[in-house]
């Protein structure tokens, strides 16, 4: 199973930072989401895209994990050479992350 099976995602921009909220369809799945979205796993998933550190905020009462990713937007919306300068599509990428590590 992948993140997409239990949650939706939305990303946003703040300077050269991307924010990524992952929200469980059913708040009861929050613990699975939290286990799947460790900083290490998210960092590996976005390798080559997110160059800075990632901070994670757990919001169990909202069934959500919120990630703030530094140096993720090629200099930020206003000067980026990227087609998706806002990093809006970063939300789509996380949906593909397996809930459990491969081979587990």
């Amino acid at each position, binding site marked *: 199973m992948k993140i*997409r099976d239990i949650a*939706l995602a*939305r990303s*946003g*921009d*703040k*300077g*050269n*930072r991307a*924010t990524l*909220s992952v*929200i469980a*369809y059913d*708040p009861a799945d929050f613990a699975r989401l939290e286990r799947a979205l460790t900083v290490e796993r998210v960092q590996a998933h*976005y*390798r*080559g*895209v997110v160059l800075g550190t990632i*901070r994670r*905020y757990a*919001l169990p*009462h*909202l*069934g*959500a994990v*919120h990630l*703030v990713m530094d140096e993720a937007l*090629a200099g*930020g*919306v*206003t*000067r980026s*050479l*990227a*087609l*998706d300068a806002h990093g809006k*599509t*970063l939300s*789509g*990428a996380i949906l*593909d992350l397996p809930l459990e590590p491969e081979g587990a």
Partner: protein
Amino acid sequence: MDVYRIGSGAGYAGDRIDPARDLAERGRLDALVFECLAERTIALAQQRRSQDPDAGFDPMLEERLCAVLPACVAQGTTVVTNMGAANPEAAGDVVLRVARSLGLRRLRVAVVTGDDVLPWMQAHDVPLMDSDQTVRCLDGRMVSANAYLGADALLPALRAQADVVVTGRVADPALFLAPLMHHFGWPADDWQRLGRGIVAGHLLECAAQVSGGYIADPGYVDVPGLDAVGFPLAEVRADGSFVITKLDGTGGRVDRLTCTAQLLYELEDPACYLQPDVVADFSGVTLQEVGPDRVAVAGGEGAPRPERLKVSLGYRDGFIGEGQISYAGPGARRRGELALTVLERRLQKAGLVGLEHRAELIGVNAMHGPHRGADREPYEVRLRLAVRTDSRAQADRVGQEVEALYLNGPAGGGGVTMSTREVIAVASALMPREAVHPHCRILEL
């Protein structure tokens, strides 16, 4: 029970107008807010103003007001907007002109200025945020500097009973907080209620993003009537708690998922959301579905406001030249890759060496680099080359070389587009709030 009904009429400068008209006509609103200023919008508007002293406000101001003003005036709905952009004074005159053309007999317009702090920024040296440099590194390139004003700057306009409040750079949620503070008489140091007002403003400021826009994923998140998605409104109580909803008969959905996605949107630390009026804490906010398309929002705290205000600095940052061309059918990807190699060599020979650039294939690696999904063989690819240059001529050359792939590149390339644009980038800094002087001018019809 005293309930204040506040709606969102636009979440960005180009937003749809029909849902705003619908809200104005059927929403029984006390206030309708139009948030139309992205980070860079005001810098671009400042450039238009420098060429034409009567320009620099939102180009859609007239169209939006024509759509909502008759209903808002008839029902006593206060309009609050940052569509003044780089020229709120001129925008105020446009509002009066629109009112006259609509045959309105009276209208009071408040023009709130003071966000333009370019002279201060040119005369002082302060660090740039998220950088090891200072404002002085932008000397000669700075085109605008606008402080984020707070709700406090808008209160004199509301006390003067303005029907329309038009301003420039104001923190987005503060456009919503101001009418709430005014209506309920929340003191400027009632941090808890100010924090809750920011929660409401933040949920509303992106319009349809809380009512079913930008969330549909067929088979996973289905949104009924997305084509006719309605804009949201909040029914706010004196304690700062509120219900988010939308009009009956509109498309979209308002529920725990849409509200959570918007609550967290673009936040850094949810417990520490810096605003000019308060440091808001969203970490304890609770959402409860209390009816169809109705979510009750409770909680939210606040701490004393920051001593300094954030300033957005627009500056000229060179040019970007870009070209795109498509390849399709068997081997599309390899032909696209060959075209990129050809382009790289040609630009090198043209002297465009060592420049920051992106060379990619849309459909393969343009979004998230080579590590995600780039191993698949797509039916079609679109080559994209974007290069940052110092001069317009160099930027033009990028598009020209992509276009020349027609006769001088791999087989079957088509659909070339090319562009050159000057980059107006935005940096941020902080300045003491004492040096910022908001001003309110009343215009009467």
